[in-house]
């Protein structure tokens, strides 16, 4: 009978739970789902991490390649994030070019990397003006059950901590790069940004870590990214109902 009510009036069904300050999966309003992380599972990538936030599963693989540094910043490398939401993770995504959700998520991750200064791009430079590292961060969602931004940020951070770059020296005579695969070092991660997403219900209630259904029923969402010093890197509130400052 409850299943029938849920299909016909999903919002009312949800409100019954919210009135008792809990949610259909038994969580409190401020409780996160169980989080599990698996680091270094992809051996062909330079760094990888698999994150599960309840049912939402996201995997991040990082590959490092050589590139010429940008002409306007010859002492910097590149970090290129890309979020992919394949049809595998949810029936709402079709195959083909990246949809709007994937593009927005990619831009969000690029903003977090830029704002939080998680790695100094100067650390990725091997030889100013000639050679630098470019880190391709591919984040793929395997199961979409809400709160994709938090999971992607977490997977990216975990994978970056797992990345080991080999030592590279430029041979003076030939001018070619010599890679020493035996000597690898970890990246210098300067800050650890953590994203927290909220769903706004009926203009007043804030719920942490929304599932897919909750996101669909919510009137708005809010994502806050903070680093360990308590500084805000990003306050992403794409429309939705208004919130007062407090």
């Amino acid at each position: 009978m409850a299943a029938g009510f849920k299909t016909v009036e999903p919002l009312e069904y949800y409100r019954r739970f919210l009135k008792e300050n809990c949610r259909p999966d038994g969580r409190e309003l401020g409780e996160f789902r169980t989080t599990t992380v698996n680091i270094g599972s992809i051996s062909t990538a330079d760094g990888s991490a698999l994150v599960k936030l309840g049912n939402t599963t996201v995997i991040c693989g990082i590959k490092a390649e050589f590139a010429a540094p940008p002409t306007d910043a010859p002492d910097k490398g590149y970090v290129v994030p890309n979020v992919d939401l394949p049809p595998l993770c949810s029936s709402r995504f079709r195959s083909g070019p990246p949809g709007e959700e994937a593009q927005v998520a990619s831009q969000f991750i690029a903003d977090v990397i830029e704002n939080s200064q998680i790695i100094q791009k100067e650390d990725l430079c091997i030889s100013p003006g000639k050679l630098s590292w470019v880190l391709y961060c591919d984040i793929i969602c395997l199961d979409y059950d809400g709160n994709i931004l938090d999971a992607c940020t977490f997977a990216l951070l975990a994978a970056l901590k797992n990345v080991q770059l080999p030592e590279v020296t430029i041979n003076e005579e030939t001018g070619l790069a010599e890679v020493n695969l035996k000597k690898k070092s970890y990246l210098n991660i300067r800050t650890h940004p953590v994203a927290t997403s909220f769903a706004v219900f009926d203009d007043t209630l804030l719920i942490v870590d929304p599932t897919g259904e909750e996101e669909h029923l919510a009137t708005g969402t809010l994502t806050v990214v903070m680093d360990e010093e308590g500084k805000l890197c990003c306050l992403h509130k794409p429309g939705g109902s208004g919130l007062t400052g407090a």
Partner: protein
Amino acid sequence: MQADAKIRTESATESGPRGPSCSLRHFACEQNLLSRPDGSASFLQGDTSVLAGVYGPAEVKVSKEIFNKATLEVILRPKIGLPGVAEKSRERLIRNTCEAVVLGTLHPRTSITVVLQVVSDAGSLLACCLNAACMALVDAGVPMRALFCGVTCALNADGTLVLDPTAKQEKEARAVLTLALDSVERKLLMSTTKGLYSDAELQQCLAAAQAASQHVFRFYRESLQRRYSKS
């Protein structure tokens, strides 16, 4: 054509002199300047200029229709180059802001399209886009439950706040926050930020943005009063 030119210049409004406490750049707005869209507006903030056109409520593709609401679409075209991922992200922000205020349930199974063209970018672009979109929606007669405006705040390294920064100020700032506020209760509809800042600074920016939005909403009101009193 003479009459058209006359009507057009009369529908343009410029902001009057403001008090010393407000540090927004000079802004101007012109409505109903394009003949094809149902509503159009051009919003100028200092040297930043955005042209907006609204088509709707109009027919919607069956794949995109929502049974009980209007489908809102926003297209943002940059001044040069092809639209990329950053434009998509901005389109999503503007679309969600409009969805929060437009009464979509009055026009189910229709589409309302907002097309924004960046004419010149001299800082505070997203806020200018939001203002132009709001004026264009009003010009098209789309029912809304509130008006909205965009305000940009830049935080410098020494902690000072600059409202409506120019492109140079934005580059030098430690953090740039773009906030969209609604006209009824000055609540925060949309926020997107760049850079690092603390919680207290966020509250400061929000308060400053709420004060600045007063001026913008007063300008909207004056602009619409002038337009409708002539016709």
